[in-house]
């Protein structure tokens, strides 16, 4: 589980090369870990941001970084938390810091063909609804998606993402572009399920925060929430496609919060 120390500057370049390599091979199994990492990181990030505290943000970033690094190992994932495939990797950062890297992946099975579901996912409005529990995703021209996670110190965390790999009906990979506080990437994979189960969809997120890494603390503080973010995105996609709407109880009559609850 030990990995070679990379100077921070070299990290991105190295990652890019690895991704490109994998992309050329198009070994979708190899790509999965990276996407999952991205998802997890995103979750962490979102949660941290939502907390609106510096600590939260730092945690989110750190968590994301961990996730991403985890993806770069070729270790088999193992289950660490409820229903979440997590992989960890200890990596030394700088001289005195060791961080635990975490990769997270979730899958869901839903009705529909891989082709139809892929097309649905590609609809920019779909992504906005699916990620709506933590981010606003809008088309920003030039084939870019604009991601906005509201509420960090009263400000939103934003980035543009571009599709870097596209295999219709099978796999879509995206990655943040330009200067952002939270470099990240993700992928989603569609595979036909057996019998009349439809399609299995797998989603990963990898976040790669810059600068100081809070690392293990971030993951611990966030607890199971990051996994929920990825899971919820998939569940929201499933309900949207199958049932035509995302279930909600908001607002809900109740004897609290002004006669309603959420």
């Amino acid at each position: 589980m030990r990995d070679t120390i990379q100077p921070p500057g070299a990290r991105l370049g190295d990652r890019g090369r690895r991704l490109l390599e994998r992309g050329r091979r198009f070994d979708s199994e190899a790509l999965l870990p990276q996407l999952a990492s991205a998802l997890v990181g995103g979750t962490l990030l979102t949660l941290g941001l939502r907390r609106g505290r510096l600590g939260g943000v730092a945690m989110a970033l750190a968590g994301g970084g961990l996730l991403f690094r985890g993806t770069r190992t070729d270790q088999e994932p193992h289950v660490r938390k409820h229903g979440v495939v997590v992989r960890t990797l200890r990596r030394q950062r700088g001289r005195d810091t060791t961080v635990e890297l975490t990769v997270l992946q979730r899958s869901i099975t839903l009705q529909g063909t891989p082709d139809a579901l892929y097309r649905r996912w590609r609809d920019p409005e779909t992504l906005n609804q699916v990620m709506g529990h933590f981010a606003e995703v809008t088309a920003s021209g030039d084939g870019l998606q604009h991601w906005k996670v509201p509420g960090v110190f009263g400000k939103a965390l934003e980035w543009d993402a571009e599709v870097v790999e596209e295999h219709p009906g099978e796999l879509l990979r995206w990655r943040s572009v330009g200067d952002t506080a939270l470099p990240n990437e993700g992928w989603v994979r569609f595979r036909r399920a057996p019998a009349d189960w439809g399609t299995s969809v797998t989603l990963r997120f990898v976040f790669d925060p810059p600068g100081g890494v809070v690392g293990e603390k971030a993951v611990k503080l966030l607890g199971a929430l990051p996994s929920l973010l990825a899971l919820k995105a998939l569940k929201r996609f499933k309900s949207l496609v199958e049932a035509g709407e995302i279930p909600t109880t908001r607002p809900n009559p109740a004897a609290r919060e002004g006669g309603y609850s959420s």
Partner: protein
Amino acid sequence: MRALCWNGINDLGVETVGDPRIVNPRDVILQVKMSTTCGSDLHFIDGYIPSMRKGDVIGHEFMGTVVETGPEVKKVHVGDRVVVPSFICCGSCWYCQHDLWSLCDNTNPKGELQEPLFGYQTAGIYGYTHAFGGYAGAHAQFVRVPHADTDCFQVPEGVTDEQALFLSDAVPTGYMGADFCGIQPGQTVAVWGCGGVGLMAQKAAFLLGAERVVGIDRYPERLKLAREQVGAETISYEEVDSVLDVLKELTGGRGPDACIDAVGMEAHGTGVVAAVDRARQALHLQSDRGQALRQAILACRKGGTLSVLGVYGVMDAFPMGVIMNKGLTVRSAQQHGQKYLPRLLEHVVKGELDPSFLATHRFSLEDAPRGYELFKKKQDGCVRAVFLPN
């Protein structure tokens, strides 16, 4: 509007809350004509099932009139008199399409709360804890019904409100329990519990071809209903030394072909085991009192079927060895109401089924806490308390 809210363990109050609104496009708003108590409500009222929040509107068995429809609602119209199964179902996921309605994938917005306990999420229910979705319940003047085209069933002319009311939960649950038994002509079915669900399971067992049905309870008025309204034979477990022995004698030593548990986690019982169960549950050393279930497993004939309708948490001290060595088939589910409602309505229209005798007491919504008290303590012969909110 006014609604019955859970304010804490054994603390119910009628409160003024916000009116429900159309939130999703397949929603309708129902003006509730009747709602009724259910034994499974008692489990969270008593605090044995967690994830209620102070101020939640409860109630999951109801019927009423549609007063507003969302833009995607096609088959249901304002003014329709409908009955609604207690589980909220999308109608389009794999589970709904395979008639496993209470396992719907798409209606529980808080399914992740269930996954640590169950592995996977179930459908949402009205007014029944946040693990089951956190939807506002129907002991209220109005209730929001999602996926109305799938979940609202028109009540035909000639079927009364009270007959329709119990088709929401008690009747389909009981009917499903009997259906699980795969009853063959000439068979004997024993049913633990003579509350609403137990009585309906007994009735359904006859409708599905059972020759003899035995109801087991301890309240004389419930046993009387089983005899007089359903035609079952009855055993009062407090008046016999051994339910097992009585069932054996009733069946020539073979045992019932199928046994249905319509009691659940708050079973009463007699003897040391019941006392130990009760103490362990009170001390939170176990979530369930399994007396009725264990007795049903013991009494069932070899190679027979055990059908579990009672609500359980994470029960320990479960006699798996008995099930295994006797070759029992075990079937269980929360009710798949959407599967059974059309045929149940037919039974009612044809006069083969009239569940309205379950409604032993009526209250205005304002008196609902008293209704639950009566229902919980089974005072005054209360089988079901019906609330009229409007």
